[in-house]
């Protein structure tokens, strides 16, 4: 790591202590492969409970907080403000948005260094793609909207420590999309529909080679690489405008190889997003609107 004179430095290297040799709790891996259901007992199309609220950051035009499982995300929207001189291109074609996603140093098990992780850049780009179609930027000529996301917690503290800093991008992207769209709505930025994100894990049954899916995978489910008797092969994240029924962003990775199955998986995500939108997102917005009155 490059020397950073602008911050207070600690020792050159430090480590998370290794677990004790004698594990006090048995690892969940052997048991969960045997049982048919999911680790936390949810149905395959069931999403985890999601908590969302708005107006957390008073300085911002709009803000939102989303918590799902162990992931906690704060989003603040600033603007509309003038486009910075370096970014000026075609100023008559409406506004632009800029997305910035950052992980707090204490977000994961191992402390993050101050250098930006590649994952943060890729999160920002994917978020930008997913939000852009929903916004009516033609109404905001010559201005820019800044969307800042701070991830307070990226993984559940009780889950198995992964080797990488962030084991899976998709787990963070979905709540980021939901939070950002909620904050934009809170800032009264005009949009066609709020965007809701959802992820889905894809598994292959080792004996029949058939693919099957599970909505809203937890980190544990991906890390153990096995769930409900299947082997993890990939995952997909979808950003959806639920009322209009349009997909705004799709990230998919893994060895899936079946186009028909991909279509099915996306459809499942769309349905899950519609549920989240109806139950959580709309409620949060209406609540904040009524609190204001």
């Amino acid at each position: 790591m490059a020397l950073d004179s602008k911050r207070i430095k600690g020792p050159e290297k430090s480590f998370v202590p290794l677990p004790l040799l004698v594990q006090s709790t048995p690892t969940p891996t052997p048991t969960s492969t045997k049982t048919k259901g999911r680790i936390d007992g949810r149905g395959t199309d069931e999403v985890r409970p999601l908590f969302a609220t708005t107006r957390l950051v008073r300085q911002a035009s709009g803000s939102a907080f989303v918590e799902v499982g162990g992931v906690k995300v704060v989003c603040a929207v600033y603007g509309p403000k003038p486009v910075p001189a370096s970014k000026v291109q075609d100023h008559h074609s409406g506004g632009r948005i800029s997305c910035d996603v950052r992980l707090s140093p204490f977000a994961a098990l191992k402390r993050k260094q101050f250098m930006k992780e590649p994952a943060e850049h890729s999160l920002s780009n994917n978020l930008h793609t997913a939000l852009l179609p929903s916004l009516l930027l033609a109404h905001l000529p010559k201005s820019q909207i800044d969307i800042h996301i701070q991830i307070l917690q990226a993984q559940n503290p009780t889950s198995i420590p992964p080797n990488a800093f962030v084991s899976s991008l998709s787990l963070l992207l979905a709540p980021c999309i939901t939070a950002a769209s909620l904050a934009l709505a809170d800032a009264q930025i005009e949009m066609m529909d709020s965007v809701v994100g959802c992820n889905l894990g894809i598994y292959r049954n080792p004996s029949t080679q058939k693919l099957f899916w599970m909505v809203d995978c937890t980190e544990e489910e991906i890390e153990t690489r096995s769930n409900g008797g299947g082997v993890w092969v990939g995952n997909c994240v979808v950003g959806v405008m639920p009322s209009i029924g349009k997909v705004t962003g799709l990230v998919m990775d893994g060895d899936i190889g079946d186009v028909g199955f991909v279509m099915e998986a996306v459809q499942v995500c769309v349905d899950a997003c519609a549920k989240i939108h109806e139950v959580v997102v709309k409620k949060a917005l209406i609540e904040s609107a009524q609190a204001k009155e």
Partner: protein
Amino acid sequence: MVNPDTFKKLHPQEFHRRFLGKGVRPDGREGLMIDLLNLTLVTPNRIHRNCKRKCARSNGWNTVICGIKAEVAVPDTNHPTTGYLVPNVDFPPICGSQFKPTAPGEFTQSVSEMVYRVVKGNNILDLETLCIEGGKAVWVLYADIVFLNYEGNAVDAALLAFTAALKDTKLPVAVYSDVEGTVRADAADRSVSLDVKRVPFGATFGIFEQDGGAKMAMADPTDEEEAVLISSVTVVVDGESQELMGTFGAQVPIDLMDQCIGQAKKRATAIKKL
């Protein structure tokens, strides 16, 4: 007609002068008096459980979160039994539009440095207690203080979040193995709390020049007020012993300084009760 918001934007100096000339602050507070009612402590568990301990604090409208992560490192050869305590303050762009997503600016660095000086100079925590195995392994406590909403008076808020988080921190029992040269600990274990010797509380006062050139102090200035101040002073007081732990600032008349210190002590006592 000009509404107050417009007036404040166009003429901040004049706007504040008119309020302070009558001894009132724009947000309804009284000049030097410190109000503690704006202070809330959010239960740390609700916000975060991932690291050893963390705490969100709000000082007025400031929202600060301090996460303390404990990791293991090889100690400095000159001080083989001393652990590390590394406080860093960060103002991510989320906390205000004046902060840009770049390397920390001068302001961030100075706040960070101020917190570090309080921590370093006052022996808040006996770093010897962070020793796991002399010369081989010690604990490193990374205290990252992140602002989520910034509205002035950064030092007070940062110190408050830092102390609260430090007092809540619990470490696991660590075992050093000579054979492997590694440290092992049960991740779920939270049995050793830190021996926090002193509890620093900051109280910042802004010095404002009134029409006649007379100077007055006001406690806990907001960022809008900070913009029109001629200088400011931060008094750091130990919540346990009421001792003065340090002051930072410049250009303060002696009589005002006395008042500030008195108020800071009162405030420290009151905060401690929370």
